[in-house]
């Protein structure tokens, strides 16, 4: 039992990390608030060249045919960078392969296509604006998924303006796919992104409190600040292995995979929500402005914490799974 990434998995993650560090600094995320900048498109294309968008796609469809254990560290890095766009949904949806509308898979594999998912099928979808394909349904792995290829979109203002939120009415065409896996991958990928966001917020805050002085000392020397950040660090350290375990369970067809995936979302959502509020608090008035980068990542964390089932929903799912007689 080694509970860690293999050398290949770590290497793949490092490639993505290096790419994002170079190509997706905070100013690119910030630029995404005013519509997708060219830099974001370039990062998507470069990630696609590494094979990220086709990570779960079968080899005969042109993908890497890798599994969720490869996926999670990659999406954690994407979360850390705050890359705008529906990468979780695109990677998840791309696994449909030939079931996608004509041309969509090629576009996704080239890094130009975007798949948006309205997982709760309520007509409100993140990244609807600019999406190549929209998938609706799949909630809890229990409702059918339909493909919507062209949609009438009405943009909706969101807290995080990179989320390109929109309402739509199109109904779509049912598509045959393993809905449970589709749902679990979306939840898992969102969990991975949340742990990455949480770590980014921790890093930003550690930097800030080490530099910012009040009362003649760095504010990071106050016990109240230290303890908040120590608790945050612990929440992240607990969530990260839980997300990785869920990936492994999904990849190996563990019968408890659904429980493990819900648990990953709960812990990652809690870590990210704590990261968002703690980082704003420790930045003081500076955290309450849009001038600081912390707001970019805190708002993303708040948005993703509610996506693909909020914490309470997944906690109740775990509770139901643990209740005897309800497991089967």
């Amino acid at each position, binding site marked *: 039992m080694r509970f860690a990434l293999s050398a290949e998995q770590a290497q793949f993650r490092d490639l993505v990390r290096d790419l994002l560090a170079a190509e997706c600094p905070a100013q690119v995320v910030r630029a995404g608030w005013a519509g997708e900048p060219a830099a974001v498109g370039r990062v998507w294309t470069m990630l696609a060249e590494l094979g990220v968008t086709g990570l779960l796609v079968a080899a005969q469809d042109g993908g890497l045919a890798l599994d969720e254990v490869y996926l999670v560290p990659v999406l954690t890095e994407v979360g850390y960078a705050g890359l705008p766009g529906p990468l979780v949904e695109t990677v998840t949806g791309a696994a449909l392969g030939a079931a996608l509308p004509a041309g969509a898979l090629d576009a996704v594999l080239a890094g130009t296509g975007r798949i948006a998912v309205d*997982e*709760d099928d*309520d007509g*409100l979808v*993140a990244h609807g604006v600019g999406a190549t394909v929209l998938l609706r349904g799949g909630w809890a792995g229990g409702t059918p998924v339909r493909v919507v290829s062209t949609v009438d979109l009405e943009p*909706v*203002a*969101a*807290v*995080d303006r990179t*989320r390109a*939120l929109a309402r739509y009415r199109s109904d779509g065409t049912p598509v045959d796919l393993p809905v449970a896996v589709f749902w679990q991958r979306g939840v898992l990928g969102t969990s991975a992104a949340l742990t990455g966001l949480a770590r980014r917020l921790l890093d930003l805050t550690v930097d800030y409190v080490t530099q910012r*002085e*009040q*009362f003649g000392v760095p*504010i990071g020397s*106050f016990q*109240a*600040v230290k303890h908040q950040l120590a608790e945050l660090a612990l929440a992240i350290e607990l969530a990260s292995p839980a997300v990785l375990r869920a990936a492994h369970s999904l990849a190996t067809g563990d019968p408890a995979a659904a429980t493990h995936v819900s648990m990953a979302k709960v812990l990652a959502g809690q870590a990210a*929500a704590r990261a968002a*509020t703690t980082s*704003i*608090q420790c930045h*003081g*008035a*500076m*955290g*309450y*402005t*849009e*001038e600081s980068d912390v*707001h970019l990542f*805190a708002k993303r964390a*708040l*948005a993703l*914490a*509610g*996506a*693909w*089932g*909020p*914490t*309470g*929903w997944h906690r109740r799912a775990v509770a139901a799974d643990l209740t005897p007689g309800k497991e089967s």
Partner: protein
Amino acid sequence: MSYSPEERRFRDQARSWLADNVPARPLPSGDTREGFAAHVEWERRLFDAGWSVVSWPRAYGGREASLWEWLIFEEEYHRAGAPARVTQNGIFLLAPTLFEFGTPDQQDRYLPAMAAAEQLWCQGWSEPGAGSDLAAITSRAVRDEAAGGWRLSGQKTWTTRGAFCTHLFGLFRTDQEQSRHRGLTYFLVPLDAQGVTVNGFTRLDGDEGFADVFLDEVFVPDEDVLGGVGNGWRVAMATTGSERGLSLRSPGRFLATAERLVALSVERTGAVTEDVAQAWMDAQAYQLMTLSQVTGLADGGELGAASSLSKLCWSELDVRLHESAAGLLGAEAEVAGPWSKGLLFALGGRIYAGTNEIQRNIVAERLLGLPRR
């Protein structure tokens, strides 16, 4: 512990006026330029009907209401969903200081105009190097003996609605030899004075409600020093006490939010969840604690460090109320709207008016008597 017949009549009167006058559609945010104008118009209507400053003397536009009646009015105001008060920095923060430290001339010049929303006040506390640590202020005032006043220079920041206001109150260092809490003076500054530059910037909730205020040799005459030269810290602490305590965040606002949360829970789940019930109880408890504190004040006591308990309570409560709502809203929580904006605004409540870390220090040291380091 019940409301008197007079108090019930006062409540009915307020409720009825609000029902007839509160705009049916919410105004645009008062922290944007266009919204601010709409809010000022609302404030003037409120003033004309005598509801702007209910607890003030009649001479300044008030009704000489008791503390209880003030709390009742606040409850009704928020229950009716009436607009947020863009005059609040003036009437809730500066006014108590003017009543306590102002000269009759200052009171006459500023209080009625403030109540009528003709003069719009913002506060000039924070500076880039002085946030939580207010005593680190470096903005300075240099004596201009010939002109009979002072020349103010420096930068104030995180000034709420600074870009839309007409006046600023704040602390400046009049004695450069002194440091920290000493040598500070409280000034009243018109923002159209020569040498003032105001730059708005954007807040966490997306509104342009903050400003940097730059002052370059701005002249302020002696009659606009509040509370005496060199007394700034003591005068400011009185105002800060108001801000943290009862006046800024009356329970009515949180009771109204709690009721909306209960309705949201029923709408989304068909019942009130445990989490929502807890938040509702916490809001009720804040109201009861306030009633108890107000009774102490009415009996001649002082609020003192207990205002830090209030500040801790309402600011943490506000976050919990909005976090509960986000849990109920799920994926919809990210849509820009009253709940999501309210959550971001609530996160600011733990920071402004003295961070909650500082409030906990104050409670521990001044109420419980624990040793300072």
